[in-house]
């Protein structure tokens, strides 16, 4: 049994919160740059240039790329040979608290959805635990802004709707979102499982690098087809026209019930933040 102190978790989460918010990952930058080069609409090219200028400026000055530094979504893969010494959930929240205060990040969490009083330190985090073989702990922090989160959708399709129904629903979700989620967007799609599992898979899909396709060739082909169809809609960067509407479609699928075909679409903006560290 490997011992890891809870303080170590706090330290890593703190660092990941700050880094994720100030430095855009390489896979996202590369995709924005490539799509800028392929963009034909002048207004769209200009917006993409401002977006590139913005993330460079943020990185140089260690400043947040976007003012919506999000809900702190924290994904943990905990090796079953690991024993955490101390309170793990409290350690994660302490890391978020320190990261958001020390990093001058915005505190965007209200303690109750109706009374809406700010918690003042961006806690609690949205935490997703997964127990896996091994003696490592992998932590991914993916701060999630609400502008894109609010444009997300879920639907319980019928098995007879099939892949065509799935495609239609994803395209509808993107069309419905239009300029609101700060396109170019990243489209996370969760298919299968239960109502809640599909939503989780859609969020998890957003943590996958944009240059890594679904490992199943059929699903990878569907990702590619959906990306092409979305980019034919003409919404464009910020919704002002162009072919760069989405940077990537990432799908995660899971077995489901004989009577079910849940599909969740979790939309992310071009500030597609995700930072990972293995302890």
């Amino acid at each position, binding site marked *: 049994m490997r011992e890891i102190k809870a303080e170590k978790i706090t330290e890593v989460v703190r660092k990941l919160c700050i880094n994720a918010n100030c430095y855009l990952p390489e896979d996202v930058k590369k995709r924005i740059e490539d799509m800028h080069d392929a963009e*034909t609409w002048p207004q769209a090219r200009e917006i993409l240039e401002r977006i590139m200028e913005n993330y460079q400026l943020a990185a140089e000055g260690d400043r947040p790329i*976007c*003012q919506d*530094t999000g809900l702190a979504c924290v994904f943990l893969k905990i090796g079953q040979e690991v024993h955490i010494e101390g309170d793990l959930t409290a350690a994660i929240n302490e890391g978020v608290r320190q990261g958001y205060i020390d990093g001058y990040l915005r505190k965007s969490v209200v303690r109750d959805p109706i009374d809406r009083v700010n918690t003042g330190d961006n806690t609690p985090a949205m935490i997703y635990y997964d127990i896996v073989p091994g003696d490592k702990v992998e932590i991914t922090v993916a701060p999630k802004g609400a502008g894109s989160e609010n444009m997300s959708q879920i639907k319980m399709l019928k098995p007879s709707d099939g892949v065509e129904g799935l495609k239609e629903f994803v395209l509808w979700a993107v069309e419905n979102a239009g300029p609101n989620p700060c396109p170019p967007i990243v489209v996370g799609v969760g298919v299968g499982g239960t109502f809640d599992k599909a939503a989780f898979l859609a969020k998890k899909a957003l943590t996958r690098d944009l240059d890594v396709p679904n490992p199943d060739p059929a699903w990878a082909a569907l990702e590619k087809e959906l990306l092409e169809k979305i980019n034919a809609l*003409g919404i*464009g960067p910020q919704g002002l026209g162009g072919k760069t509407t989405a940077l990537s479609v990432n799908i995660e699928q899971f077995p489901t019930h004989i009577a079910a075909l849940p599909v969740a679409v979790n939309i992310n903006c071009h500030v597609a933040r995700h930072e990972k560290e293995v302890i």
Partner: protein
Amino acid sequence: MAITITTPLTREKVRTLKSGDSCLITGVIYTARDAAHKRLCELVAQGKELPLDVKDSIIYFVGPTPARPGEAIGSAGPTTSYRMDAYSPTMIQQGQTGMIGKGKRSAEVVAAMKEHGAVYFGAIGGCGALLSNCIKKAEVIAYDDLGAEAIRRLEVENFPVIVIIDSEGNNLYDTGRAAYLETVK
């Protein structure tokens, strides 16, 4: 060539601005988003005085990150505007002439813009670090308890925006996309 706007933004100036125009705003603008708008509209309903001079004002829908020592403000890009749709018609009736945000607006907001003479500007969403360079001074003038959502008085220089919806209701989200799609037919 960008159009220069110096605040206050008069109704006469509003009527010269057309959907698709690039503009650079210099002067004083105010920040407000969900929670602040709710309070402002409650004051209007009660017939009480507002904590800012609404006449000919521009309100920027933004909740900035905290300023670091020595900086005027943190990152400060636009938030999605439709959440203010419930409040903007009231504010426009009170004399507000400009809104800065991103994303779609409701038919009720556009109707108020046409009736009273107001314009909806878009700033680039997700460019908070870049846009904050145009903000030279920031001061909380109301609702400090709201943190990022407090009302701030900003002094801006050449703050870049595009006219999305003008005072005649022309909408760049419709026309920009349609014009692009014409080129790929």
